[in-house]
């Protein structure tokens, strides 16, 4: 009986470990999201150009409403490294540099994850990136890309 209980306990512990590990792995996944009504075909290159201030309008002619996470948010680092091939710090310095040079074309809005999710769900021309787990819970948004760290 004790041996049986020990076996059950071990298998339960194993399952728990797998669950915790898979959860932590999923937490590293970021999703690039747009409003559910966005009809553009969005590629990784387009996202890079949007976040480099090179592309500022959707195909419909509407100005892109751009959301970034704060520099200290780990999600920003994952996104910047994956899409821009530079650190979050360097990416933020680029925005500041564009501002002082007076060459900035699109304004960037820096908001926390939940607000990014909410705003993207509200505004048809918005784009942002948030953890996949947050994106899956938010209505009225469309995941256009998943970034695995």
């Amino acid at each position, binding site marked *: 009986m004790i041996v049986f209980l020990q076996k059950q306990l071990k298998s339960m512990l194993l399952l728990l470990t797998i669950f915790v590990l898979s959860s932590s792995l999923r937490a590293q996944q970021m999703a690039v999201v747009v409003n559910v009504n966005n009809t553009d075909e969005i590629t990784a290159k387009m996202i890079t*150009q949007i976040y480099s201030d090179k592309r500022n309008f959707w195909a419909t002619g509407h100005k892109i409403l751009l959301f970034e996470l704060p520099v200290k948010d780990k999600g920003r680092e994952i996104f910047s490294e994956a899409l821009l*091939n*530079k650190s979050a710090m360097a990416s933020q310095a680029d925005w*500041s*540099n564009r*501002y002082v*040079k007076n060459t900035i074309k699109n304004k960037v*809005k820096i908001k926390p994850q939940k607000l990014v999710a*909410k705003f993207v769900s*509200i505004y048809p021309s918005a784009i942002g990136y948030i953890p996949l787990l947050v994106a899956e819970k938010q209505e009225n948004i469309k995941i256009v890309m998943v970034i695995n760290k």
Partner: protein
Amino acid sequence: MKIIFYITCIVLVIVKPLVAKSVDNERVNQLEKRITELELIVQLLIKQNEQKSILLSDKQKVSLTVDKNLTHSAVANEKAISNLESNSKNSISTNEIADFSSEPELAVYLYEDLSEELNKSIKIAGYADVEYRGSMEDGVNEEFRMHHLSLFFSKQFDNDVKFFSEIEYEDTPKFEGLNDGSGELKTSTGKIFVEAINFDWNYSQHLNVRVGRFFTPAGIWSEDHYPPFVTTQERPLHIRKIFPQLVDGMSLFGSSELTSNHFFNYITYIGNGESNVSGKKDLNSSKSVGFKGDYEAPWLDDFSLGFTLYRDNNDSSNNNAEKFAHGYHIKLRQGNVTFQGEYAKEELSFENIGEDNISDGYYAQFLYQFKQWSLGYRYDVFDKTNHDIDKITRNSLFINYHLNENFILKGEYHQDSNDDLMIEDYNYYILSVTGYLGR
């Protein structure tokens, strides 16, 4: 019997206050509960009032001021009290409870509304730097230099109109009058300079208009020169010596997608030229014109290639010469490695003097970035005249450490070589701290 009487007395003396206390506690609990309910209703009514006022003036986007909030609170309190009086049993009705579910949306809306108000207010940013300079040149002392304090003011108007300005305080300016009625200065050091003041009308991605004073769109460093975002405090030798630093005039600029993911950015302008005086006068009627084109391709992480053209038929700063300048630039980045280079050439034609003058300059810069560190080298040449004797060559090594996205520590070492044998070659270094003061 007596015993029963005494026991009753004891019970009345001891237990009654306890019972009374428990009744009081119950009363307090009830009151606390009522207060909590009242608070909830007040909050709800404040939100509702705010929502109503927003809906009423939806197009005007009513600003949320402290005074207005206070008025709302007073009105809400009155309504809450009357509500409570009329509905003593069920303080919060079912409908009101249901309305709470819309509060997150309302909060988001209010937050966004406030952000919009902030966006429309004037934005202030800036940067500052402090240097420690040392040189091997004879007679030059090592020194601290409070080099720049620059303030940026910008404002976004409706109708896609934007204002931008930069005021620079260089070398901690000080101007002090004699205070004797003469109007003369006792002290005047440093420089206060309005480097930019302009209005933009952003019509579309393809067409925008700028009018005012702005940095000459020429190559890379002419605009991209701000200490918190460039690797060295020293600019390459030919910068501002071939193309002028500023334009007082008007420009058209925009960007166009040539084919999928290939962009062409242009900026063309007309201005007073270098004969401009204090942003007020032009010494001649001839205007300078310029054009900069940039091609951006989806190759590497960054790929940009461009050219600049500039003409002033009557350049007062060069003895009314006819000036033509052209330049080429490239910037490439792959991962941690960035390369940028510029070449520029100026041709001055003098009517009275037979000989024309040509000057040119170029640099090539390599930068390697690793986490918060940047390490780089720049080779830099400037030839002021067409005689090689004026040629200067500079080798620069530099290192940057980024404490965060806005604050950098820099170290740079420059080695100058002059072709002119009369000028002694020397090396110098600059250690600096620089910070961006914006968000």
